[in-house]
């Protein structure tokens, strides 16, 4: 699934924070989005997923049939149903749901979740239940049927909750922030499997550049609201602008 943004801008009270002339995301397996703090990375992701209303411009989604659809008329939940799902930089959680219930809630399709389920009490189907069990067995939660307690567990749960809804273009906003190193490795392994199986493409925002160089096949460099450079990791590493503005060389 590919996403293209044209003339996408966002200003807060007249102050521009984002100005993307022309860019496309999700065409290269795992992509990276890097840039200094305040460059507008999270704002860009917010505009792409329609959580933030862009000031001007257009975001188009290339469907499987090759016909682009403008996302501008859609709400964030509709965009998520189309397959555009984003993890959160800051910890977000459903505090009154257990870890397993939280995954079930996210995975259940909306027609199994409406008022009729009050009468049927329909359990989630076995395939999904098994998928959740596999996912939970793979990651070290202290108690999958208890609540997510630590920040790390909440962050991991946030990522898994997005994985379980089967995104087509998976946007990860700083997955390493708050996660222990070995769990980040496991998460990236899971993501890599899904990408290799052709289930999704990924874009990662990250300050941990080792993770970017190691996993991404294409990198966008965002600074002061615009994409100043993009290309293969090696090219980005060598680029003078990136080095000056970001790596402080």
């Amino acid at each position, binding site marked *: 699934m590919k996403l293209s943004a044209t003339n996408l801008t966002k200003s807060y009270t007249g102050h521009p924070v984002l100005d993307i002339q022309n860019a496309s995301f999700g065409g290269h397996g795992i992509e990276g989005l890097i840039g200094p703090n305040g460059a507008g990375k999270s704002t860009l992701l917010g505009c792409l997923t329609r959580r933030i209303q862009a000031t001007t411009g257009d975001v188009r989604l290339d469907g499987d049939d090759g016909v682009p659809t403008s996302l501008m008329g859609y709400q964030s939940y509709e965009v998520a149903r189309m397959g555009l799902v984003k993890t959160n930089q800051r910890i977000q*959680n*459903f505090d009154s749901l257990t870890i397993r219930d939280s995954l079930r809630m996210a995975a259940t399709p909306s027609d199994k979740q409406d008022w009729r389920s009050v009468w049927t009490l329909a359990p989630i189907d076995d395939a999904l239940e098994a998928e959740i069990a596999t996912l939970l067995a793979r990651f070290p939660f202290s108690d999958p049927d208890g609540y997510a307690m630590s920040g790390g567990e909440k962050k991991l749960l946030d990522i898994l909750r997005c994985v379980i809804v089967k995104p087509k273009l998976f946007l990860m906003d700083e997955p390493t922030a708050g996660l222990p190193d070995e769990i980040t490795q496991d998460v990236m392994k899971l993501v890599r499997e899904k990408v290799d199986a052709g289930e999704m493409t990924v874009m990662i925002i990250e300050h941990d550049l080792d993770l970017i160089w190691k996993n991404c096949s294409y990198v966008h460099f965002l600074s002061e609201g615009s994409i100043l450079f993009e290309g293969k990791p090696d090219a980005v590493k060598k680029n003078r602008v990136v080095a000056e503005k970001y790596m402080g060389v």
Partner: protein
Amino acid sequence: MAYLIFTLSLLLIYVGLALALHIQFGLLGIANFGVVGFWGLGMYAMGVLQVQLDMSFVDALFLVLVLSIAVSWLMGWLVLRLDPQATLCATIAFAAIVSLLVVTEKWATMGVVGLGTIRYPFRIGGGTEYLYFAFLLAVVVGLQILVLRLHRSPTGKLLQAIRDNEELCASLGKNTFQVKMFWFVIASVVMCLLGALSAPLNQFLTPNMIVPSVTFAVWIALILGGKGHSLGAVVGVFVTFGLFDILIETYAPVSPELAVVVPNMKLFLYGLLLMAVLIYRPTGLLAPTTPPEHVWAEIRSAGIAAGRGAMTLFQNGKNAIQNPNTNQPADSTAAQENDGAADGKS
């Protein structure tokens, strides 16, 4: 006795209102401070339709249903996008509008003169009040079952997720506004219909029935009982309304001089109890957990075992009466039955 049945019926109405508020606030986090608005609207609509237009109970109830769906949907559309404080103010304003309209629209409501008499939907001599009480009991039990099942269903989990973090929920592809709207309307319509059912109970309607203290009583009951627990509403209403309005006001041996003080004391004690609960047990008397599946299974099998035990006792008793001399066969069946019961329990 007639007065006791009246207050008990009123208690059921309060339980119903608290259950509806539990859906709105306990599960969805919508701060509806206009409970009395919906309740009063239903009650006065019922009164006007029956007294002024001489409609039958069933016809009037149907029209109240239609009206309440329209009003609740409009309210939901207006307030559900707002932040909680704004929702709270808007619903208070709604209740104020309803109570003002009742006073000003004299052509329909008779204003401060009062509107009456609203008859019971049926009349069977002295038993009418009791039958109506049984009817209300069935309605409220139905509501409680709905709430219990809602807690265990996938919908209930979705509602809790929306209350916890609506934006996160939307980002996972859930149409949160639609879900909130649906259950807000259902719960508000329930409040309106409970109002309609209160009309025959009160028989004579006056504007001073539609006062904020009804809203506060329901809120206090829900917070005391436990806003997140499926049984919090019932427990809360029994602890507040049941304890103070029925037990103390009606049955406590109070001298006439003190009787004047009791209603004020009631408010004072309500407040004291509420403060104590909020300080020492902020979740309410019942903590917001649903019994997990295995607890339900245990309750169920314990119920079955108890039922079987009772059957065995009954059989034994019958056998003992029928053949007073031969105890042997009765004992052997009892042993078998007990085995069966033990199996069921394990």
